[in-house]
């Protein structure tokens, strides 16, 4: 075993972290994240130690560290300040604040200060768009940054005050719940939905009863218990509940496929990697409705016969870890988690929280599972799908936070009650994360079928130019479409609802999103790795005034390549914000083009300057003809 030689990681602490994770290689990411949190870096010696202890190649450890934005092997300084760089943060002036902080701390963006004290940089949306601009300091979220609050942060850093001693009021995060419906206004007490689930009985002579009797023998479960589990499954199916993470897959079908998949161990995974810029509803659900989330997961476990659950919590929501673990502890004490839940033989289920470390692509369910297994979060080849080959290649149900909440409500109140809400094709309600140019940003819950104009009115949006529905991977709509509805059959959404008023430049919105996708591409497949970078550089070229019509055509070509060949949804949708805004706000692009004809990306004559200098010439013959420019 290599003992870290005077490195920043004391060996005992490292040993403790490794012991806490039982030397399990699937815990590699969790181990690295904890080392990072304790020491603000993972030194090469620590990485070697981890590799040896977990029995994984060191190169693999480098690979994981390099994949996640919140992990580093090179020092970043004792304090690392990351400015959330979503378009909403931009609109609230985060750039100016970043420059001001850099000047105050005498540091250049993206580089550690000479004394190793601090570094300042940007990061992808941190899910605090309703109270931006937001920053993370050593992973801890600080919302509503004003020049005064930022001065406070700078002083604390310069005084080298340990993070634990920073004033608590800096870290206060509001829920900003503006409109409640069945979910946010629910009256379930912990355990209600589970008790209702367990109490379900089969309708005599029904297909569910026949299935339960037939399986009872095969699965070795008493037919009464199986009857209840399969009835819950049936209720979820009948409710028409569809996934709330964006794709909208029918939840009941997913659960059933997982239950029917061969294999003994099954897993329930809650996707709390809420990375889509502009969405923050899961933050509020996990903060204020954690019981409902866990209740829904436990209902799922009961229905599909799973014994182990994970919440994959995005690293930006690190502040939720302790409160969530406290709720889990209370539920265990109350017999709602653990062995023999509510006294039911064979109903054993527990939940564990895994943290992400800054990777949007891990919101894709198969990438999330890779990350849960401690690897780089690269989406898998499908088929097979997670319902049959998920975590550790075992049957796994992955659902969004909000989906589990809805499932708990359905388990209690039944499918008829649920189906009656919303539209024929979109049952129930949807949480929207409203932010941007409006008077009252926050969480709004509406029945499906609600018109965009209704939301705009309720949130106090005026002179609205455009709304980005479901974040950059969703759609951008303009005023002519505000009568459209939030529904799977019209405007499906994962929840982000970002409002832009007439003072905004939609080209800059698209450019911000293009930078986001290039930053978050996992780099696995050629089209996305190179295509998102090309899109970014093309929009930068237009922004710098070197763009031409040719570039606009190039964007459409890139879009086609990405749609045809990208490995996952990130690549498929990467060009959407650009094409949406190009279609609706073309003048905002065209007025930036240097000419509507071809324009070279660089100054041809300027490129000859070095040759002129070397040859000592500066006559007309040493310059490119400028005649054609007139």
């Amino acid at each position, binding site marked *: 075993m290599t003992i870290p030689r005077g490195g920043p990681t004391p060996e005992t602490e490292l040993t403790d972290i490794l012991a806490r994770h039982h030397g399990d290689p699937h815990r590699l990411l969790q181990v690295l994240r904890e080392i990072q949190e304790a020491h603000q870096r993972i030194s090469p010696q620590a990485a*070697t130690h981890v590799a040896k202890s977990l029995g994984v190649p060191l*190169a693999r450890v480098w690979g994981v560290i390099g994949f996640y934005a919140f992990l580093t092997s090179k020092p970043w300084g004792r304090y690392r300040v990351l400015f959330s760089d979503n378009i909403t943060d931009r609109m609230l002036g985060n750039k100016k604040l970043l420059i001001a902080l850099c000047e105050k701390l005498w540091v250049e963006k993206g580089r550690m200060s000479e004394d190793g004290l601090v570094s300042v940089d940007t990061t992808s949306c941190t899910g605090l768009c309703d109270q931006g601009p937001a920053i993370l300091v050593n992973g801890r979220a600080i919302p509503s940054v004003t020049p005064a609050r930022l001065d406070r942060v700078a002083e604390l850093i310069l005084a080298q005050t340990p993070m634990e001693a920073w004033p608590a009021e800096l870290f206060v995060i509001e829920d900003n719940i503006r409109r409640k419906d069945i979910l946010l206004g629910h009256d379930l007490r912990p355990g209600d939905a589970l008790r209702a689930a367990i109490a379900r009985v089969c309708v005599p002579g029904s297909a569910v009863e026949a299935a339960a009797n037939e399986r009872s023998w095969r699965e070795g479960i008493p037919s009464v218990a199986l009857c209840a589990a399969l009835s819950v499954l049936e209720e979820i199916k009948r409710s028409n509940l569809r996934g709330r993470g964006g794709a909208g897959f029918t939840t009941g079908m997913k659960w059933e496929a997982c239950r029917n998949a061969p294999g003994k161990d099954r897993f329930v995974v809650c996707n709390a990697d809420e990375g889509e810029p502009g969405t923050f509803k899961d933050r509020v659900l996990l903060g204020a409705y954690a019981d409902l989330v866990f209740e829904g997961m436990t209902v799922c476990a009961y229905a599909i016969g799973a014994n182990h659950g994970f919440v994959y919590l995005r690293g930006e929501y690190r502040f939720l870890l302790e409160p969530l673990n406290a709720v889990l502890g209370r539920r265990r004490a109350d017999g709602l988690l653990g062995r023999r839940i509510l006294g039911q033989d064979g109903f054993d289920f527990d939940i564990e929280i895994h943290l992400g470390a800054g990777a949007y692509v891990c919101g894709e369910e198969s990438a999330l599972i890779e990350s849960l297994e401690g690897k780089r979060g690269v989406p898998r080849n499908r088929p097979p799908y997670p319902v049959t080959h998920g975590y550790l290649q075992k049957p796994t149900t992955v659902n969004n936070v909000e989906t589990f909440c809805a499932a708990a409500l359905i388990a209690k109140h039944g499918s008829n009650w649920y189906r009656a809400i919303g539209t024929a094709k979109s049952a129930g309600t949807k949480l929207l994360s409203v932010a941007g140019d409006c008077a009252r940003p926050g969480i709004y819950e509406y029945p499906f079928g609600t018109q965009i104009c209704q939301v705009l009115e309720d949130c106090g949006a005026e002179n609205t130019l455009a709304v980005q529905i479901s974040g950059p991977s969703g759609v951008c709509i303009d005023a002519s479409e505000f009568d459209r509805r939030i529904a799977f059959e019209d405007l499906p959404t994962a929840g982000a609802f970002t409002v832009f008023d007439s003072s905004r430049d939609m080209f800059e919105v698209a450019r911000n999103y293009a930078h986001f996708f290039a930053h978050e591409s996992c*780099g696995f497949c050629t089209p996305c*790795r190179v295509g998102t970078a090309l899109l970014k550089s093309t929009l930068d070229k237009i922004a710098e005034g070197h763009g031409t019509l040719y570039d606009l055509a190039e964007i459409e070509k890139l879009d086609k390549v990405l749609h*045809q*060949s990208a490995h996952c949804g990130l690549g498929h949708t990467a060009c959407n914000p650009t094409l949406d805004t190009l279609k609706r706000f073309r003048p905002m692009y065209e007025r930036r083009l240097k000419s509507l004809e071809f324009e070279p990306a660089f100054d041809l004559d300027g490129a000859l300057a070095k040759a002129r200098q070397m040859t000592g010439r500066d006559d007309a013959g040493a310059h490119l003809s400028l005649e054609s420019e007139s």
Partner: protein
Amino acid sequence: MSEHATFLLDGEAVPFVPGQTLIQAALSAGHYIPHLCYHPEFKPHGSCKVCTVKVNGRTAASCTLPAQSGMVVESDTDEVNDLRRTLVQMLFAEGNHFCPSCEKSGNCTLQALGYDLGVMTAGFRHFFPDRPVDASHPDILLDFNRCILCELCVRASCEVDDKCVFALSGRGLSKHLVVNAESGLLADTDIALTDKAMEVCPVGVILKKRVGFAQPIGRRRYDPEPISAQALRDAPRAPSGAGHCAACEVEE
């Protein structure tokens, strides 16, 4: 599924055995589909996307898609070849590929594919990334400028050599190859000239020192015949490795 199961590839019936992916079945039956990161000796990986085909009207990577009876697959069409050409141009744009001075020239899969697919222009503005070489090893040079991130060396070193000398780190455009040493240098790994990982690089990243430019122009691999005429000779082959490395892929 019966042993006579077939799918249609550009109008011709191609037989397959259950479990085979499209490209495996196609190559076995003597049909070439352009590919880069796919290698018959390793588990398909699906990252370069050059082998993309149209299956029942939808595009998919043929190296990872399991063949199914009755599939209608289009491969040698203008639309699909256009896509492949663009993908190859993207790979050229991403790294630093200077064929005339590269000792892999003439034996390089990327270059050969470029010729065969008719890549006549750069297509995109090149990124010209800064990628220092690793010349630390006495016998082996790593020139990362040419890396196309196909992971063949990663797979060979793990699956066949059981060493895991290589892995990928970073993400997006800054994804890059790393080696299994605390110093980050190849000299401190246990790579050997006899390793499978030394043979598989399709481009000029992993090179034996002091043997460059051994074959004169005209006698290099892709001088006499284009890659499409040669690829079938190499495929299919039985996997040479046991396909295991306890530490690597925990799955399966």
